[in-house]
């Protein structure tokens, strides 16, 4: 499965590099590169400065969203938990918007110390705070209530959305330009700088998941049962929350709110390979990356030369899919 998904990702990546608004024949260019031949300047710029950073960012963001969805579902012991649905993305968005609008108020030393990382770090903090709050709200005595989680998530998303709205009103024109892409989510405007900013956080989060897999399997039996298996439950929950916050924060900081990847990918994989997190998490990273790049290709080509925000594509495909999951899991929603 892992091998198959790797091939899928490579194939989709190669296609993605060659599809787009430019008329240049990039297939030929790709083949030339593989043969070790020189390619033209125009092709080179399009490939390496426009398409490639976008592709790499798509892979990072897709993997981050899918894996954080799977981790969150494991943590909440529920297949309906998704960072986008329960307000974690909104919290990360609020963090990012605060950094853009209010970043000027930070002490100069801090601003210079964080540099490009101000926005992702703020998004990470926003996502972290929201996740912790949500977990505290919906869990009492080791039992996580699905109803409280979903409804609490709606409340948190509304609240953070409102705060973000206030900040947007306060923003000046330059800041507004920076802010516009958040609403729908997009990979447009991907640059190597953004890749370098989001990459480390996402890679760090993905690197933590092999250590989480066993604990998430144990947690599926319930918190008490997991503890009886010798799993340090509290520590693992903290790591899981940090992982989700880091992955979602970094993804939101560079691409805005892209929904549904986190719920669709783990669910598809559970149908195909089962729910064991040791296999689910790495496969989710690969499939999430592939699906997001695919969605990005659709968003770039469906109304070419204009571009549809990718959030619209994932929502169009993911919304009905989510409803289907909801109907399949009706019994889990007993309030």
């Amino acid at each position, binding site marked *: 499965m892992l091998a198959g998904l790797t091939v899928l990702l490579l194939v989709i990546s190669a296609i993605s590099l060659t599809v787009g608004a430019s008329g240049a024949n990039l297939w030929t260019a790709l083949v030339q590169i593989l043969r070790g031949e020189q390619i033209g300047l125009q092709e080179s710029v399009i490939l390496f400065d426009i398409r490639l950073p976008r592709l790499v960012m798509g892979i990072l963001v897709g993997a981050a969203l899918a894996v954080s969805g799977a981790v969150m579902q494991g943590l909440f*012991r529920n297949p309906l938990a998704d960072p986008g649905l329960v307000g974690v993305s909104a919290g990360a968005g609020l963090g990012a918007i605060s950094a853009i609008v209010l970043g000027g108020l930070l002490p100069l030393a801090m601003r210079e110390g964080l540099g490009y990382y101000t926005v992702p770090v703020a998004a990470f903090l926003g996502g972290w705070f929201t996740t912790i709050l949500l977990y505290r709200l919906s869990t009492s005595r080791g039992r996580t209530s699905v109803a409280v989680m979903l409804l609490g998530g709606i409340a948190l998303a509304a609240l953070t959305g409102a705060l973000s709205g206030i900040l947007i009103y306060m923003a000046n024109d330059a800041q507004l330009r920076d802010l516009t892409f958040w609403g729908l989510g997009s990979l447009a405007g991907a640059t190597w700088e953004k890749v370098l900013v989001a990459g480390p956080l996402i890679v760090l989060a993905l690197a933590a998941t092999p250590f989480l897999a066993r604990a998430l399997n144990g947690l599926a039996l319930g918190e008490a049962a997991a503890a009886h298996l*010798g799993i340090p439950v509290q520590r693992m929950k903290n790591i899981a929350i940090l992982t989700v916050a880091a992955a979602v924060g970094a993804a939101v900081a560079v691409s805005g709110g892209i929904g549904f990847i986190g719920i669709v990918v783990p669910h598809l994989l559970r149908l195909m390979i089962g*729910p064991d997190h040791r296999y689910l998490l790495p496969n989710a990273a690969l499939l999430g990356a592939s699906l997001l790049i695919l969605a990005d290709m659709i968003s770039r080509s469906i109304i070419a030369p204009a571009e549809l925000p990718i959030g619209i594509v994932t929502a169009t495909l993911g919304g009905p899919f989510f409803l289907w999951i909801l109907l399949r899991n009706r019994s889990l929603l007993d309030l």
Partner: protein
Amino acid sequence: MLTATDICVSLSGTPVLNGLDFRAEPGQITAIVGPNGSGKTTLLRAMTQELPYEGEVRLGGDDIAHIPGWDLAARRAVLPQASRIAFPFTVLEIVRFGMMACADPPPPTRASEALERVGLAGFEGRFYQELSGGEQQRVQLARVLTQVWDPVGPEGPRWLFLDEPVSSLDIGHQLEVMGLMADYAAAGGGVVAVMHDLNLTAMFAGSVAMLVQGRLEAQGPARHVLTDRILSAAYGCRVQVGVAPDGDIPFVLPQAASAPGG
């Protein structure tokens, strides 16, 4: 040896256990019985650290509060009352989770062996969520068994803590599971079980602890604890205990009992 000394537990401000002492020896089944709400499950959950408690619980002489989680997991396994699982795990996957805690990797056939012991041979590929309550209970028991498979380890006897292990089973499987518990104890392991069925308790338990309103009313062999006087007082109805003709195992027939004032 398991000893619980001066255990106090309060649930949302209401005291449930008040300075209770309890002990269990390896080599026999120790049953915790008592009327609804007498604190049976609370005692089990306190002794397995699922609830905060005051007092002291020692397992093989060590205070469990000071044994690291991984070490405890190798020495005792806990069967919860009912378990719902959110994801579509197969029976085999669930049973294998028990092996997470094993110090030495067990043979790959261990999970199937455990399933056979609980009467679920051939259930490996079934989905846990699609099983009946009684079958789920036995899958969990198989998982718990794989965790502490050998009744005696290098560090001493191992323990099974079981919360109503046979409450949702039919009589055939009740006898099968009780027999399994008795075998585990006979091989040197410790078994502590919360029980509702007084007759199965009398048949299999070497020691019976009767709880009433958060206190230990009596603990000892079944024929000393399951008496007309103790049972009638504990359950608030007149109970007549009989004795099977071929031994000293007491039995209780509901037909021979009567409600208070009846």
